[in-house]
C-alpha cells in the first residue's frame, strides 16, 4: 500500500473576503524532504500555508495533511508552524517564549534550550524578545515551531532578513531535519533558495504554475539561473 503523502491538495480554492486568492490548486508533498513554496509577494504562499495549518477556511477542494483533513485536532501535535510575522510575545524573554510553546507541545525545558540552540540564540535566551533585532526576533518564532519536534514543519519565509551566514546555517539545519524524516514546507520569494529544495511548488497569482525539482526547473525554464528559469516558466504558461 502506498504511504499517504505528507500534504495533498486537490482542487484547493480559498477566498479571502469574497476575493478568490487560491484557484484550484492540486499537488502532493511526499513525507520527508524539503519542499520550497516559491512565488512573488502576494502570490498566495501565506494563504496556502495557513490552509495547511487549518486556520484558513477552504472554499472548495480538499487539503489533507498526513492523511487527515487539514486542521484536524489530532494533527496539531504533528505539525509545526512559523508564521510570516513572528508570532512571539515581545514582552517575554526568548527562553520564556520557547518554554511556553514547549509546554503546549508537551515538551521539556531541555527541549526548549535545544530549539534555542538550533536557531543560534543561546546567548540571547535571557533577553526580552522585543529587544532583539528583526532577524533574531523571527528566529525566536522558528525555535517555537521547532520545539515540538513535529513530523511536518510549515515555515513561512523563515530566512527573510537574515545575514547570509545564518541563512546557510538554517538551510543546513532544514536539510538535517529532512534527513531525519521531517517534511518541510518552506516558503521564500528568493529564487536562489530554491536550489536548496528537493521539490518546488511555483505559485503565481494564486495558481500553481508547476511542481518540479530545481533541475527540472533549470531545464524547463532554459536557464541555469533559477530566477531566469522561473521567468521562463511564467512565459511558457502565460505567453505574452
Amino acid at each position, binding site marked *: 500500500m502506498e504511504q499517504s503523502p505528507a500534504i495533498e491538495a486537490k482542487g484547493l480554492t480559498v477566498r479571502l473576503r469574497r476575493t478568490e486568492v487560491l484557484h484550484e490548486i492540486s499537488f502532493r508533498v511526499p513525507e520527508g524532504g524539503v519542499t520550497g513554496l516559491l512565488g512573488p509577494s502576494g502570490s498566495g504562499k501565506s494563504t496556502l500555508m*495557513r490552509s495547511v*495549518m*487549518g*486556520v*484558513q*477556511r477552504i472554499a472548495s477542494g480538499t487539503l489533507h495533511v498526513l492523511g487527515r483533513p487539514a*486542521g484536524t*485536532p489530532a494533527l*496539531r*501535535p504533528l*505539525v509545526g*508552524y512559523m*508564521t510570516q*510575522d*513572528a*508570532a*512571539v*510575545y*515581545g*514582552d*517575554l524573554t526568548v527562553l*520564556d517564549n520557547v*518554554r*511556553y*510553546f514547549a*509546554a*503546549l*507541545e*508537551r515538551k521539556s525545558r531541555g527541549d526548549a534550550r535545544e530549539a534555542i540552540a538550533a536557531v543560534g540564540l543561546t546567548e540571547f535566551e535571557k533577553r*526580552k524578545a522585543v529587544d532583539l533585532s528583526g532577524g533574531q526576533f523571527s528566529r525566536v518564532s522558528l525555535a*517555537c515551531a521547532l520545539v*515540538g519536534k513535529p513530523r511536518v514543519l510549515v515555515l513561512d519565509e523563515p530566512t527573510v532578513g537574515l545575514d547570509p551566514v545564518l541563512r546557510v546555517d538554517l538551510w543546513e539545519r532544514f536539510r538535517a531535519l529532512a534527513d531525519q524524516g521531517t517534511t518541510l514546507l518552506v516558503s521564500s520569494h528568493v529564487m536562489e533558495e530554491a536550489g536548496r529544495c528537493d521539490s518546488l511548488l511555483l505559485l503565481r497569482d494564486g495558481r500553481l504554475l508547476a511542481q518540479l525539482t530545481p533541475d527540472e526547473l533549470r531545464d524547463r525554464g532554459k536557464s541555469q539561473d533559477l530566477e531566469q528559469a522561473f521567468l521562463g516558466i511564467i512565459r511558457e504558461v502565460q505567453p505574452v
Partner: protein
Amino acid sequence: MNPRMLAATTARVLNQLRHDHRSIAMILVVPSVLLAVVYWLFENETLPPGIPRTFDRIGPIMLAIFPFVIMFLITSITMLRERTSGTLERLMTTPIHKADLLFGYGIAFAFMAALQSAIATGVAYWVFGLDIKGYGGLVVLVAVVNAVLGVSLGLFCSAFARTEFQAVQFMPIVVIPQILLCGLFVPRSQMNSVFQTLSDWMPLTYSVKALQEITANVDATSEMWRDLTIMAIVLLGLLALSSFTLRRKSS
C-alpha cells in the same frame, strides 16, 4: 482541559505582567490611592450623630468597582494584542484547548485581583478605619469573583475591537453605565423603575450588593451568597460566549 497547558498559560500571562511595571502599579497601588482621595474628600463632613460616614457607604462600593474596571481594561487590551500580534492564531495551531487559554487568563488575573483587593481592603480597614462588620476574607472573595467577571467581560468585548483604541472605547459603553447604576451615586431604592430594571441586569450591581451585605452584617448572609452566585453564573456565561469568539479558522 489540560492542567499543564493551563498552568503554562497562567504562568505566561503573569510573566508578561511582571515585565509591565505600569500595569502592576495600576493593579496594586492605584486603588488605594483613589480610596485615599475619597477619604480626604469627605474628611471634613459634619454628620448628625448615628449617621455613618459617607466614606463608610462609598468605600465598599469602590472596593467592588476597582477590580472590575481595572481587570476589564487590562484583559481587553491584552487579549486584543494576542489577536492582532498573530500569537492567538499561532496558539490555535498548537494542541492547546480554548478553555486552557481562557481559564489561564482568568486564573492569572484572579490572582492579581486577590492581591489588589487584599491591599485595598487592608488600607481601607486599617488606615482609614472603614467600618466592615463582616469577615474581611469575604470582601476579598467578592473582589476576586468581581475581577474575574471583569476579565470575562474584557475577553468577550475584545472580540469586537480591531485596535486597542476601539477596545478602550468599550469603557464608556459597557463599564460606565454599570458604575452609574450600581448604587454608588444614588441608592438603588431611590432610582426610577427603568433604571432599577436596568440595574438588575448589570453584573456590577450584584457585587456592590454583596459587599454592602458584608459590611453591614457580622455573619455571611444568604443574600450575599445569592449575589455571589449570580455573579459566578454571569462570568461563566461570558467565558462560554468568549470561547465562541476564539475561532480556530478564519474565513
